[in-house]
């Protein structure tokens, strides 16, 4: 009786020490689930979800403060992926947060631009180049199409241009053909 209690106490202490050491040694920085959610989000940083960026939204999802269907740029596919990751039911996109749009980039009409720098301050990915009283321009490659630069512009010189299909970004389409019913082959 006494020995068995001793053994159990000893085992408990041993396991406790191992767990304690490994929790220090293999400490995970940050919350891995937030990073996983964040990697699914499209990183447009547009804030349509109601949070100031993709990471805050990911954090809110992880904490249960937000639903998985608030990201229009991620679209249906993104919601499916989030549902798979978190093991929850799929929900259609919440229309309150906007509709999915074709991928676009912002274009500044450089003749109209007065160089106020307001759009530069609004851009979440520093994709606008320019300085006070000098013309601004978009670094097309870095633009996520978040549209955050549109409202602050006092002269309305920024437009969203959908990315058109060209020989470079063109991809093979899903094959479409009719499957033959072959009525003569059907066994009557």
């Amino acid at each position, binding site marked *: 009786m006494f020995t068995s209690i001793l053994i159990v106490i000893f085992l408990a202490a041993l396991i406790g020490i191992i767990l304690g050491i490994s929790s220090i040694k293999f400490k995970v920085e940050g919350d891995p689930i937030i990073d996983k959610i964040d990697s699914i989000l499209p990183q447009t940083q547009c804030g349509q979800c109601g949070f100031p960026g993709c*990471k805050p939204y990911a954090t809110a999802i992880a904490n249960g403060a937000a639903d998985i269907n608030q990201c229009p740029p991620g679209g249906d596919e993104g919601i499916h992926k989030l549902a798979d990751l978190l093991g929850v039911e799929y929900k259609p996109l919440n229309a309150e947060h906007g509709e999915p749009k074709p991928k676009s980039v912002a274009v500044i009409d450089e003749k109209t631009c007065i160089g106020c720098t307001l759009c530069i301050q609004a851009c*979440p990915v520093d994709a606008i180049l320019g300085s006070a009283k000098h013309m601004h321009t978009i670094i097309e490659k870095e633009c996520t199409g978040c549209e955050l630069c549109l409202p602050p512009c006092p002269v309305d010189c920024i437009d969203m241009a959908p990315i058109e299909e060209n020989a470079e970004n063109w991809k093979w389409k899903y094959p479409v053909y*009719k499957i033959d019913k*072959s009525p003569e082959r059907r066994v009557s």
Partner: protein
Amino acid sequence: MKVFEKIFKFNGGIQAKTKKNISTTSPIKQFGLPSKIILPLRQHIGKLAKLKVSVGDHVLKGQLIAEADGNVSAAIHAPTSGKVLSIEKQLIPHPSGLPDFCVEIEPDGKDKWVQIKPTNWKKIDLEKVNKLLLSSGIVGLGGAAFPTHLKLNHGKAENSLKTLIINAAECEPYITCDDMLMREKTNELILGIKLVHEILGVEESVIGIEDNKTVAINLLTKAIENEKNIFLKIVPTIYPSGDAKRLIYLLKGIKIPKSQRSSDYGIQMFNVATIVAIYRFLEFGEPSISRIVTITGNLRSPRNYEVLLGTPLEEIIDDAGGQVVKNNTFIMGGPMMGFKLPSINVPVTKAMNCIISSEPDMVEEKKPVLPCIRCARCAEACPVQLQPQELFWFSKSKQLEKAEEYNLFDCIECGCCSYVCPSNIPLVQYYRFAKSEIIEERQEQEQANIARERNEFRILRLEREKQERAERNALRRAQSSNEDKTKLIEEKRKAIADALKRIEAGGEEQ
């Protein structure tokens, strides 16, 4: 010289009617000057070439029109002398059927060369040759259009190049441009092989040729009689023996594993036309401005043409007598891997090895597609030993991850599976769809990662700026409270004291 040696047979493949004699009865015809030249800036794998001319410029034959943008790119030269008419988007021979940037040149008829000079390639090292080749615009002329200078290196230091393989298999039906080149430019080809052989410093050069090209085999056998290090190896006519990894296995018995290159195994391969292009560039200084194209199929006089790049295809088809049965359907490349041209109104590019005017049975006989019956004949035919039926299933249901797991990217899109399929399923189309879908997804992920990084950096920067501003303010406040304030108070005190003194003095006067 050894002619016959053991040939290693690869799995699967097909034996189709080669239909090569349609275009081998007449010699190669020099097409000459077309009415206009349209040069697409995208003629190779990699980045678009960087433009070096503007509208209205007069250019000479061989003059640089656009230079390579970075290393994975190729330069473009004027095929004849003339005036630059326009630089705008025009239809190019691309499966998308979408227009792309092209330089249009109006030939002045003089065909005047820019000053070109041969390279003393025997005296300079490979690195310099590579730099020169970057400006030559030479790409793989077998149809893939991969920039050649990227292939001319020693390989990894520990296993330097030992074997140069010259791909003369030309395994797709209809195509005969390499065959005709070997027949008519045998000497140039041999000189080219010797040149590349010497530059790369390899021990042996092996020409791999299919046994249906008897004329070329005889000519080459005679030409290399006295060569010690050049061998000719004849491989059976089984499609796709011209695929790089298949040919290496046929000739050397080496299987190059997934995601590794032949240069890791001391082997480098060039197409015969590419070898001749390298020779003409290093020996005479001629950049890549023309190529041989097979114009075949349903035409009055099908044959091979040597044409300037940028020649409108329509003019060549007219020269070949036009279609016998009009159906306006043309295929670029072979019948197995080629694609239907969106229009005949496209220019000749570096990648254009063959144009097939569709024969009536190719267009009309659209066999109905039936459901997959899981007969696995595609698996038997697959030369890469994949499971085409599984890949089809995953691609069709868009289970892209699964498809990738089943080595979708090892598929060479040779079309053997579609060819043997009793249900006529366009299998390769599904694989191409799945591949480009996965590639796009990867690119999007990459872009998202960059956006995340930039966003995180911005937040960090704002934070830092805020902190710096706070520090500056604190400092200013601290400074003003110490020195400035005491100074100010002292000044005021002094002023009061002065005023008091004045009052005192004034009082005495009064």
